[in-house]
């Protein structure tokens, strides 16, 4: 069963890598296009982000189908149960998905033609695509959260309203923005690192780094809060899940998650501190910040203490950004165009991606050995499979 879980997990993570980026970029593209009315760089970014989404879209879907087929073959009971019990929401999901595809493809492939007629309508098309993909993702989140905190309900709609559905959706939404922001900055860092200095595209990629970092850090600061709410809802609904998570080897995943979070915070700080501030930087405060972040990682297995320290980290980060952001957003930042900064931006993009995948893994592992908590477990699946595959 471990091998089965591994392969489903492998393809699931491969799918999630592309899907989370795709969703993040789909949300950001129409916003960027709107900003592009006054700053053309953002229109270019909107086009680039949509191009990325389009190019990876089918691959992402096929990876999902691959995962689903493994699920059908290796976990037939769980698969049947979920499709049977969520059949009505799934019908809606398919309709939504269909309309989403009809919006997304013209949004990219007829970019110039539609924009020449009406930019507003073109932005609306992208916005509709983004909203619909969030609805599609929301329904799938409902099924995913049900697997962790199932409820008795008369139909699929009632089962969607399980205790962790909304917290998971919110947590995922900002997670998608974290990954989209940092990957955007990482991509810009890579392009700046690759090309010789003083190319005409420098200003564009510097804008991307700044915007990506801003989106990434703000969303990242929301994540511990939304994650706390998510964890509290799990705790209230199924206390044994979190208890299991902090026992045994699974705690390593939690430590890994907070290590990555720490790396993102410290790496972001390194980039933000490259901005010149009139009042300068307080080295004492920075040492204190590093120590607090390290303490957050050390205390990762102890939720209560970790949460207190995380709160301190967030306050410090927020306090620092309060001073940096006005300069960051408005001022010229040639200091960002250094190989060191480019490298950090790339590393942060990768770290954000791994963090996202780690969080997904934790959610799946925490449920074990159940596939649907309290309803079907690995042993039941294994027994069923051994009777059908002697």
């Amino acid at each position: 069963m471990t091998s089965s879980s591994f392969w489903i997990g492998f393809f699931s993570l491969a799918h999630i890598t592309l899907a989370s980026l795709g969703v993040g970029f789909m949300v950001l593209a129409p916003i960027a296009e709107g900003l592009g009315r006054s700053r053309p760089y953002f229109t270019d970014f909107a086009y680039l982000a949509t191009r990325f989404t389009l190019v990876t879209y089918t691959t992402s879907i096929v990876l999902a189908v691959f995962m689903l087929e493994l699920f059908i073959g290796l976990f037939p009971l769980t698969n049947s149960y979920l499709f049977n019990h969520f059949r009505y929401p799934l019908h809606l999901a398919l309709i939504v998905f269909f309309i989403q595809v009809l919006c997304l493809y013209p949004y990219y492939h007829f970019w110039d033609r539609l924009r020449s007629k009406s930019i507003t309508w073109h932005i609306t098309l992208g916005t509709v695509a983004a909203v619909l993909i969030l609805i599609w993702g929301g329904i799938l989140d409902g099924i995913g959260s049900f697997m962790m905190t199932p409820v008795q309900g008369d139909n699929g709609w009632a089962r969607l309203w399980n205790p962790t559905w909304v917290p998971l959706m919110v947590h995922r939404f900002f997670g998608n923005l974290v990954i989209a922001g940092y990957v955007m900055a990482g991509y810009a860092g890579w392009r700046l690192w690759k090309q010789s200095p003083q190319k005409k595209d420098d200003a564009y990629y510097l804008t991307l780094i700044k915007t990506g970092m801003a989106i990434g850090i703000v969303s990242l600061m929301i994540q511990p809060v939304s994650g706390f709410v998510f964890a509290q809802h799990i705790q209230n609904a199924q206390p044994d899940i979190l208890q299991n998570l902090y026992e045994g080897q699974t705690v390593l995943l939690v430590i890994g998650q907070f290590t990555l979070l720490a790396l993102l915070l410290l790496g972001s700080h390194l980039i933000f501190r490259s901005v010149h501030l009139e009042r300068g930087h307080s080295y004492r405060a920075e040492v204190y910040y590093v120590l607090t972040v390290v303490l957050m990682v050390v205390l990762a297995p102890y939720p209560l203490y970790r949460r207190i320290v995380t709160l301190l980290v967030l306050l410090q980060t927020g306090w620092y950004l309060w001073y940096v952001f006005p300069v960051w957003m408005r001022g010229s930042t040639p200091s960002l165009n250094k190989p060191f900064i480019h490298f950090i931006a790339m590393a942060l993009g990768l770290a954000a991606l791994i963090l996202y995948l780690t969080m997904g893994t934790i959610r799946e592992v925490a449920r074990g050995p159940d596939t649907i908590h309290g309803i079907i477990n690995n042993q039941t699946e294994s027994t069923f499979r051994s009777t059908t595959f002697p």
Partner: protein
Amino acid sequence: MTLEPLETSLTVGRVAIAASALTHTLFATFIVGSSLIGAVTATFSYVTEKEWFNRLAKLIAFALVLSTASISFFGVVLVFALNIYWPQFWHRLFHVMFWPFLGEAALFLGEAIFAYAWYYLWEWGRHGWRQKVHLAFIWLAAGCALSAMFMIDITASYMLTPDPIHSAWENVFNPTMIHLDLHRWFGNLTWAGFALGGICAVRYLKSTTDTDRNFFQKGGNYCFVIGYGALLVMPVVGYQYLLHLRYGQPQAFYTVMLGERSWLFDVVALLYGLLILFGSLYIMQMVRSQSKPPPSFIGFNPLSLTVIVIATMMLAMPYQLQHIPLLNQLTDQEINSLGKMQPYKYFALSSLVVFGFGHWLYSLRVFGRMPPATVSRAVSGAPRRMAGLLVTLAGLTVIILLAMGWVRESARAVNGYLIYGEMRLEDEKSTYQASPSDNGFFPKEIPYESFEQ
């Protein structure tokens, strides 16, 4: 573990599955055919360095990318529909065909990646060594698409002629597998050829410049020649397919040839005849649009068209009149002796293929002599008629493709089978409603049955 009954009619499930499967099939077959045509066209472009080949290849690449995106969505719809409406059948099938299904998904992933790389790296692959790499993308995409089709054909043929019941790979050699695969090779080329021709035709009608008009006219002719050529091979492969169905599953063969659904096969025969007829009319227009048509065509064309019209009527003639819906209200006659396969329909089919082949040779000759950038002849309305014919051919191909799919499914379903001789439609009834012992009330839960060997 238990499932909830769907509390709806089995027909709802059948319609949902049929609709999603047929839509999926339309795009899947187009992808296989167009990737192959795209690979050949890109190779011509690379070898001859003619710009119109490059432009046509890019048009095919765009169509391929859009259809790949569409099928990934329709694939999700089909898998969801099977999971919801026929869970017991789906899991039985999946237990046996686990590896072919995974293989198909992996190969489709390969097709998507290479097809996307082909289209989105078009400018990147314009010069130097990159040209070869770029060309390799589409051949790899075509290879993956064809291999994916092979995998899915194992399952499709298994459902009709399973042999053996519990093994996936041994079904590569089940009675109808190879013939189904071969039939689909040519069927896909026909469909993709005519569909791409139809796209060229529509673009021709919308064109505002002579350059565009000339390009789309030539592109339409090129795609037509491929589609029509493949169409002529279909009866030969189809005959072999039916022959092996007759030996492998006589009851299914009887159903579609002489039984309850024989009228559906007559519809397919009519559509095939019409495709040959409209194709021949298209070729007639192609030849006439030349400044110097071949003299032999003047004698061949009237004879050929007359034979094709008669053969089309003969081929579509029903033999078992009593199975045609509503016809029993008009006549008491049960048999139409003119609709016999031997000798009438064999003659009709042979005539269609032979005279169609004659037309095809003329089309090759005309296409080979087309100038690279012809000056448009505004005096003639022929190109517009040709565009109309191409669109008609594409439309007819959609209908015949869906009808053929329906025939194959009918061969199983009319006899009550989902997997022939192994699983019946009745076995899925518990998914929908209570057993009679429940006195008409839906039970709260239904058992999920495993597929025991």
